[in-house]
C-alpha cells in the first residue's frame, strides 16, 4: 500500500487538575491516507483540538499523553526524541491554526519567517530560500509576492495572512497537514477561497489533510471521511456520505437536525436541538457519555462503557448500544 500517511492507535490525553484528572481525550484511533481529508467535528471541549496537538506532540506541559502507536508513513515516530520530533514538525507534518495573527510573529517580515522555516529544515542558501518562498506565495494566490515578503503580518488582511500560513506550511512539502479551524476567523467569501486552495494544493502535493472544525457545512464540502467526537471520544466515523446521509449515532443525528438547511428546514419553523450539557470529564465515567442528552436512552447505556460498533462493511462505526437494524428503524 504505502498510502497511509498517519495512523494513531489508543490515544488518550489526561489533564491533572486540582479536583481530579480530566480525561480530555479517551482512546482515539485515527488514520489518514494520501490525498485524503479527514474531518474531526465536534462541539467545543470535545477534545478535537487536543487530539491534533497530541499528534504533533505539542500538548501543554501538564497534559499527559498516552498512546499505543503513532506511525508516520508506516514508520513509528513514537519513540522520537524532542529534537527528532521538531524535525518532523514543520518538515513532515505541517499545522495551520485558527487565528493566523497569533501564529505569525509580528516582529518579523513574512519573508524573514518563511526563509527561516526553510533554512531550519533544509540546507539551502538564503537567496534560494527567498526565491522558493516567493514561488510558494504565488502558488497560494498572493499577488505582488516580492512586495509581500517585505511586509509584516499586521499589514495583511485576515485572508492573506491565512494564505501566508498555508504557504509557510507547504514550504517543506509535508506529507500531512493538520488544520485546526482554518477558516473560522474568516469571512464566508474568503472561507470558500481558502478551502478551495487547500484542496487544490492537497491534490497537487498528494498530502493527507486532517481538518478540525465545528462547521458541518465545511465538513460536507471538503471531507473524504469524518470522525465525530463527543466528550473526548469518537462516537461515530465513516465516509462523508455515510455521516451526512445515514448517520447512526443519536448525537450525529441530533447535530444534523440543529442546522438550518436551505430547502429542508422551513424558515421560521423551530430547529431541532440537543437538550442538556456535555458531562464533566473529571474523574471516572461509566457508560455512554451522551446518555443524559439522548432521546433513545436505555438502562444498558449507563451500565458499562460502549464500544464502537462497525457497520457497512467496517467503513462506518458508531458508539451506541442500539444495534444497526433497530437504529435504522428509529431514523
Amino acid at each position, binding site marked *: 500500500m504505502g498510502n497511509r500517511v498517519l495512523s494513531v492507535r489508543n490515544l488518550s490525553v489526561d489533564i491533572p487538575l486540582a479536583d481530579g484528572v480530566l480525561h480530555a481525550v479517551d482512546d482515539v484511533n485515527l488514520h489518514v491516507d494520501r490525498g485524503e481529508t479527514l474531518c474531526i467535528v465536534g462541539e467545543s471541549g470535545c477534545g478535537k483540538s487536543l487530539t491534533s496537538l497530541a499528534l504533533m506532540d505539542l500538548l501543554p506541559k501538564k497534559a499527559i499523553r498516552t498512546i499505543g502507536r503513532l506511525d508516520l508513513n508506516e514508520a513509528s515516530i513514537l519513540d522520537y526524541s524532542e529534537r527528532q520530533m521538531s524535525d518532523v514538525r514543520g518538515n513532515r507534518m505541517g499545522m495551520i491554526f485558527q487565528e493566523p495573527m497569533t501564529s505569525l510573529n509580528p516582529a518579523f517580515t513574512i519573508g524573514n519567517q518563511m526563509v527561516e522555516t526553510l533554512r531550519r529544515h533544509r540546507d539551502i542558501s538564503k537567496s534560494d530560500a527567498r526565491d522558493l518562498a516567493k514561488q510558494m506565495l504565488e502558488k497560494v494566490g498572493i499577488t505582488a509576492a516580492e512586495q509581500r515578503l517585505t511586509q509584516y503580518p499586521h499589514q495583511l488582511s485576515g485572508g492573506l495572512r491565512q494564505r501566508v500560513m498555508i504557504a509557510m506550511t507547504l514550504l517543506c512539502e509535508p506529507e500531512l497537514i493538520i488544520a485546526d479551524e482554518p477558516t473560522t476567523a474568516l469571512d464566508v467569501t474568503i472561507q470558500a477561497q481558502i478551502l478551495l486552495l487547500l484542496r487544490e494544493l492537497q491534490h497537487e502535493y498528494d498530502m493527507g489533510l486532517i481538518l478540525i472544525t465545528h462547521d*458541518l457545512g465545511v465538513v460536507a464540502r471538503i471531507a473524504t471521511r469524518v470522525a465525530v467526537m463527543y466528550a473526548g471520544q469518537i462516537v461515530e466515523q465513516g465516509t462523508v456520505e455515510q455521516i451526512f446521509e445515514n448517520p447512526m449515532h443519536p448525537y450525529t443525528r441530533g447535530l444534523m437536525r440543529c442546522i438550518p438547511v436551505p430547502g429542508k428546514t422551513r424558515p421560521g419553523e423551530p430547529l431541532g436541538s440537543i437538550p442538556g450539557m456535555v458531562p464533566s470529564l473529571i474523574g471516572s465515567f461509566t457508560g455512554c457519555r451522551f446518555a443524559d442528552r439522548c432521546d433513545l436512552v436505555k438502562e444498558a447505556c449507563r451500565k458499562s462503557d460502549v464500544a464502537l460498533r462497525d457497520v457497512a462493511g467496517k467503513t462506518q462505526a458508531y458508539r451506541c448500544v442500539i444495534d444497526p437494524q433497530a437504529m435504522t428503524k428509529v431514523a
Partner: protein
Amino acid sequence: MAEVMINASAVTRDFSISRGMFRGKQRLQAVNGVDLTVTRGEVLALVGESGCGKTTLAKILLGLLPQTSGSISLCGTPIGSVPRLDLSRMIQPIFQDPYSSLNPRKSIGSIIGLPMRVQGIEDQQTILRRVEETMELVGLPPRLLNAYPNQLSGGQRQRVAIARALVNRPQIVVCDEPTSALDVSVQSQILNLLNDLRTELNLTYIIISHNLAVVEHIASRVAVMYLGRIVEQAETTAMFRNPQHPYTRALLDSVLTPDPRLGVPNTQLGASYPNPIDPPSGCAFHPRCANAMPHCAQTAPGGTAHNDAYVECHLYSDAGVAKAG
C-alpha cells in the same frame, strides 16, 4: 400599512483616520448614505463581509454612536430628540460573545436587573419580580438567580444576555452575531428562542450575521451591505431564490450547505475586500465583479426599486442593458 419602527434616511458616518505624524487625517466612510425602513414584527438581517459597516450602522441605531449626517427615527420619533434613557427603553442590543458581555463578578439576577436600576426603578420587589418573569420568558431556571456567569454554559449565558436586553420590554432588539460564538446544538436553541420571543412580545429585530443559513432561517428581509452602502435589499425568500446584485450572488454562492455531493464553490471573487479608506471609483464593487462593464469604474450606480426590493447595480439601472445571468 404596518407601523414603521425604524426609519433611517441618508445616514452617513465618517471616521477620521490618522495616517501618521505630519500626514494629516483621512476620511473613512464607514456608513455611506443608508436608507432603511423596518416595520413592526419584521426581522431585518444585515449581511456583508467584515468591514462593510454593519456593526457601525447598528451602533448608530442604538444611539451609541452619533451619525455624521442623515436622520433616524425610532417608533416615529427622531433619535436626536429622545433622552438617552427613553431611547434605551425602545431599543436594546444582544452581543455576539456571552463570555465577554456579562460582568463575571455580578450575579445573574443583578445582571438582568441592571437596566431597570439604570432606568431609576428602585423598588427591589418590582425589580425581582420582573427579573424572575424575564428569566422564565427566556427559559432560565429560577435557581440561577444567584449564580454567577462562570457557572453557566454558553447557551445559558446567551439567554442571560437576551433577558437583560428584554427586561425593560424594548420594541426593537439589535442582535449582533447572536449565535456565532455558540456551538451548533446550542445555536439552534437560541434561534428558536429568538423566534418565539418575537411573536410573543411583538418585537422587531435587526440581526447582524455572516451565517447566511441562519439569516435565511430567521429573517423576513435581508439587506446586503458593501463598503458602507446597502447594495441590495429584498424579502428573504425572494433574495435567496433570485439574488440580483453580483455581490449578493457571490455571497450566496459561498454558503456551504451541508451537502456532501457538492464541492467547495468557486465564488470568483478574485480580489480581496477593498481598503475602505481608499474605495474604488464608480461602483465600489467593480474590481471584484464578474459582470463589470467599462462604465462601472466611472460612475456609481443609482438605486433601482421594484416590488419592495432594491438593488444598486448598473446591470439594472441602465434600461436596455441585457441582464447578466
